[in-house]
């Protein structure tokens, strides 16, 4: 009774009551404007700080170039085609290394995670290799495959392949056994269970792994172009260091960051397009 009379007595209050928004509650959605505002504040703070330090003459210009100088350098290097040339070289190196690593690591990782025998064969190598910094291998790579483009691709390959194989084998291992057993009780042969159930069940995890390791591939770029490169964003940065052309260094860093971001977004879009049944929000 009392609840009925309450509801009747204060309908307005009930209707106008807004959900409480608490911006600091864990795991709680926050309004979109609040999210965008916070992000915008971060971006403007970083750029603002950059402007303040450079235009305010608080830091010497050969240590920290002003934004307009970097922009002008960018415009000049785009106009004369040199930036695009460096980009093309680097993208070529990254994609070749990443592609080679992926086409080997995906099948091997899936098998390693679901076939104990494959795991037993592969694991000793991967568990050893995954802790080795790629930089430690560069002298050997130079000795074995020289200083050409192959060496740069090999750095990217080694930097991503072993991580991919570990992550993908984990994805494959986490596919529930009940899923495979269901397929068997529906009449699937072993081959059908692998091809029609195990494989598709790993796709979302494989795509996530590709996204993560693509990011790591970009982080190896400068290391890859450390030795005897003639072109590439990493090479461009290293060359600029010798002449203290900080504007070019900044331009290189920004370009790598933007290309990394673009490839990440592209893989995310690809995932949502190829795997609509596992779409992310």
């Amino acid at each position, binding site marked *: 009774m009392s609840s009925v009379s309450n509801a009747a007595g204060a309908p307005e209050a009930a209707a106008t009551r807004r959900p409480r928004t608490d911006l600091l509650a864990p795991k709680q959605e926050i309004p979109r404007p609040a999210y965008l505002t916070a992000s915008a504040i971060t971006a403007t703070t970083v750029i603002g700080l950059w402007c303040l330090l450079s235009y305010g003459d608080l830091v010497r210009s050969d240590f920290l170039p002003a934004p307009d100088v970097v922009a002008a350098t960018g415009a000049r290097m785009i106009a004369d085609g040199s930036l695009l040339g460096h980009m093309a070289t680097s993208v070529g190196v990254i994609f070749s290394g990443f592609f080679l690593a992926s086409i080997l690591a995906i099948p091997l990782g899936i098998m390693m995670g679901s076939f104990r025998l494959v795991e037993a064969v592969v694991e000793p190598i991967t568990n050893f290799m995954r802790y080795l910094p790629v930089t430690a291998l560069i002298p050997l790579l130079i000795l074995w495959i020289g200083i050409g483009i192959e060496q740069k691709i090999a750095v990217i390959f080694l930097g991503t392949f072993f991580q991919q194989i570990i992550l993908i084998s984990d994805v494959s291992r986490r596919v*529930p056994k*009940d*899923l495979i*057993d*269901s*397929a*068997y*009780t*529906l*009449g*699937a042969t072993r081959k*059908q269970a692998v091809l*029609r*159930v195990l494989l*598709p*069940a790993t*796709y979302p995890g494989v795509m996530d792994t590709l996204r993560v390791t693509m990011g790591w591939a970009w982080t190896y770029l400068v290391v890859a172009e450390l030795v005897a490169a003639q072109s590439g964003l990493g090479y461009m940065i290293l060359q600029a260091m010798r002449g203290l052309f900080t504007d070019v260094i900044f331009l290189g860093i920004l370009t790598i960051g933007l290309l990394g971001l673009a490839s990440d977004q592209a893989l995310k879009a690809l995932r949502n397009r190829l*795997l*609509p*049944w*596992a779409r992310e929000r």
Partner: protein
Amino acid sequence: MAKLLAESVSMVFGDPDAGGITALERISMTVPDGEFRVIVGPSGCGKSTFLRLVAGLDWPSAGRLALDGADIDGPSRERGMVFQSYTLFPWLTVRGNIEFGPKLKGTPAAERRGIVERYVHLTGLRGFEEAYPRQLSGGMMQRVAIARALANDPEILLMDEPFGALDSQTRALMQELLLEVWGEAGKTVLFITHDIDEAIFLGDRVSVMSARPGRIKEEIEVNLPRPRSPDVLTAPEFIDIKRRITALIREEARRAIETAPPAG
């Protein structure tokens, strides 16, 4: 005629001579064609292990299992199974899941369409044919799982606590739906549960299992009229059977707790 026959089936995990665990000990059972048989027992009594043996997913240490007189030798589409966990293929729509089995055996598309139509109708899934599993509730996913198993036209339907993860209201509705589907499809069912009400409500006959090692302790005939409605839950005969099974299970559950080895 015996549809499913189990003769002295035993299952030992590990080395029997060195502390192996006897999960099942000499289970014998005859399930006639078309019967709805329920196995009820305390958790850890090995009832799921037994179902996996019938499915052919595991191999018994001793004894014989046969369907229609032929020894069970690995999994087969004759013995469809519904699991407690959600096992729909998430990359397939409801339609894709239901026609998975028929597709494997090469049923032509036109015929598959008819099969999907029939079981979508039977399990009340009309309108959801093109939905993906992640868009469905737990109860609906299990309905699709039942439809998927039946669409393959198995000789026997094996169900391993299929409603165990559902809330009690959904569970009650699913039990009624299952009885309807069973009446329509006319399949032999072997159903596992630890829920005594569920066992009596569904079953023609209830096999009560003991724990450690798992044995069939008693087989109880459920002579309640069909079709059954939830009213049957309060019928005197129902209460009577429930009292008997409860006593058997309590004894077993207590024994299981007292003899259970330390966890871990």
